[in-house]
């Protein structure tokens, strides 16, 4: 682990900017371990990120890192992947970054089935700006811009991605980091657009306002509500109410865009 820290973290850039109790560090650590386990060459790995708390992870990771504009990480990543299809791209986004301002790029990346690994750190809130509701804030929850609770229903991000053409979708959380690590490994090995929704606590900007307790309470709650896709298969809808289904929700084979493009112009990208 210490070697991993030396190799894959820019230790001089630490401490990080995240609040006490934030799940971003846990998700980032899972990503680092997952990259190590894939055996990818460090120089082939690129971390792309958008704007927001979780997107700051790029600056702490010792790879080629691209911290882009708000919502546009997948569009930058698409250009880079098409120019250099041999690179392994991990795209870190927050829930607002990916599903609101970046929603268009998200569905079109899914539609193309381009080989990018999208990791959406979902803390149900815009944390960096102090707690505004996002398209993944559950209806009824409070935010600074929804002081009486948001009236807007939230997206099911993984179903949205599946509907748009994503070929791999998985959900994990910061309370079960080893499982999250395994999910990222599987996503990385999947050829095509992979979506990993990583639930993560934001005790400061989300938990406090919604009386969800501190970081430990939020993590415990996350773990208790979590149920694996395998176990969920045997349960009916009423049992599944208020539970979050974890694991690989779908994984199918379909032509990958970069490979298809290069094949169409007579180039083999291997």
């Amino acid at each position, binding site marked *: 682990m210490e070697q991993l820290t030396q190799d894959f973290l*820019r230790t001089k*850039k630490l401490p990080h900017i995240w609040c006490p109790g934030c799940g971003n560090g846990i998700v980032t650590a899972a990503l680092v371990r997952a990259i190590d386990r894939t055996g990818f060459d*460090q*120089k*082939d790995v*690129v971390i*792309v990120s958008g704007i927001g708390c979780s997107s700051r992870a*790029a*600056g702490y990771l*010792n*790879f*080629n*890192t*691209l*911290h*882009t*504009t708000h919502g*546009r990480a997948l*569009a*930058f*990543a*698409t*250009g*880079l*992947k*098409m*120019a*250099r299809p*041999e*690179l392994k791209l991990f795209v870190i986004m927050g829930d607002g970054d990916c599903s609101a301002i970046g929603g*268009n*790029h998200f569905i*079109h990346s899914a539609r193309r089935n381009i080989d990018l690994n999208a990791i959406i750190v979902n803390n149900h809130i815009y944390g960096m700006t102090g707690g505004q509701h996002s398209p993944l804030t559950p209806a009824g929850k409070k935010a600074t811009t929804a002081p009486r609770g948001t009236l807007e229903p939230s997206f099911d991000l993984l179903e949205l991605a599946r509907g748009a053409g994503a070929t791999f979708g998985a959900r994990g959380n910061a309370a079960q980091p080893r499982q999250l690590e395994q999910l990222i490994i599987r996503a990385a090995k999947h050829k095509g657009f992979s979506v990993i929704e990583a639930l993560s606590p934001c005790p400061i900007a989300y938990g406090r306002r919604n009386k969800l307790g501190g970081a430990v309470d939020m993590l415990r709650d996350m773990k208790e509500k979590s149920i694996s896709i395998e176990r969920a298969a045997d349960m009916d809808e009423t049992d599944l109410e208020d539970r979050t289904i974890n694991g690989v929700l779908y994984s199918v084979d379909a032509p990958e865009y970069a490979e298809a*493009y290069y094949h*169409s*112009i007579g*180039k083999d990208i291997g």
Partner: protein
Amino acid sequence: MPETKPVLMQGNEACAAGAINAGVRFYAGYPITPSTEVAEQMAARLPEIGGVFIQMEDEIASMAAVIGASIGGMRTLTATSGPGFSLKQENLGYAIMAEIPCVVVNVQRMGPSTGVPTAPAQGDVMQARWGTHGDHPIIVFCPASVYESYYLTIAAVNLSQKLRQPIIVLLDEVIGHMREKVLIPEGKLMVERSSDKDVPADYKPYDEKGIAPLVPFGFGHYYHVTGLFHDQYGFPTGDPPQVERALDRIHEKLEKYRDEIILTNYIGHKEPRVAVVAYGCTVRSARSVVKKAYWQNRLPVGLLSLQTVWPFPAKEIEALAKKADVIIVPEMNMGQLVGEVERHACGEARVVPLNRYDGEMISPDQISDEVGRWL
């Protein structure tokens, strides 16, 4: 000189052909009149030469994809028109801040907003300068012919690489859609950028000392790219002296290479009483007037055409104002660059705007009448 062959082509086609000749191998775009032919040319030609064409979901994504591909080491270009150019501004600012080379073509049409999509205008001159937020340097070329569309696009691609600076090619609907003879050279007009191979282990992508080569991602130099103010290694900083220094540096590189960036052309009387300052398609009307007035009638008239509109050719205007009594600035807008001309004429010459904004070109007669009024 490489051998040349004459080809009849459209301004938009010439732009695409120039880009390819200068080594552009990546195009991301979104359809918009009157720029679409650039995308169509790229879609046809890039796959034939191993390049990448991708039609993105919107203009914002196109700009982002171009930057991403450029970080991957490809020479890149995107083309659009007014409404799309508005959408590209944020990521254009990103490319300026992160010093990622790319070329953005804006084939101007009549605005504001959706305006008259098929009518020509020169209304985006100030947008090209100040469209993205913050104090940023920018280079804007403005072709006045199909020939210039070809060669200024080549210059834009090469200079963009050299300076690690996005460059805008500001076409207009007239130049974009007209057909003219262009002499296309055999062979490439691609300037290799400074070697990416001899990079020290302690690679500083934002070296304070000058313009570091941009080592593409994937070669083991683990630097960071961000739109935040950053140190020499690319990592975010909010330290006031570093912030100021970084902003100065991206401006200074344009000042240092001013002579390569600023392109202008003067024709007419050496000591003109009345001078015209024009850019883009308006140069064509002005040229016919000045040719007739000076070459046929030996009147003290001249034309300074600006191939580069930003950075503004201040010295050239100062010199002209010392000679001329009157400077006429015809523009197909309500008066944009004229303010800049006036500022740099420093009261040495009277600066007269000549504007048209009905979606039609300024005719030679209009310019001729105005010149005659001041002779």
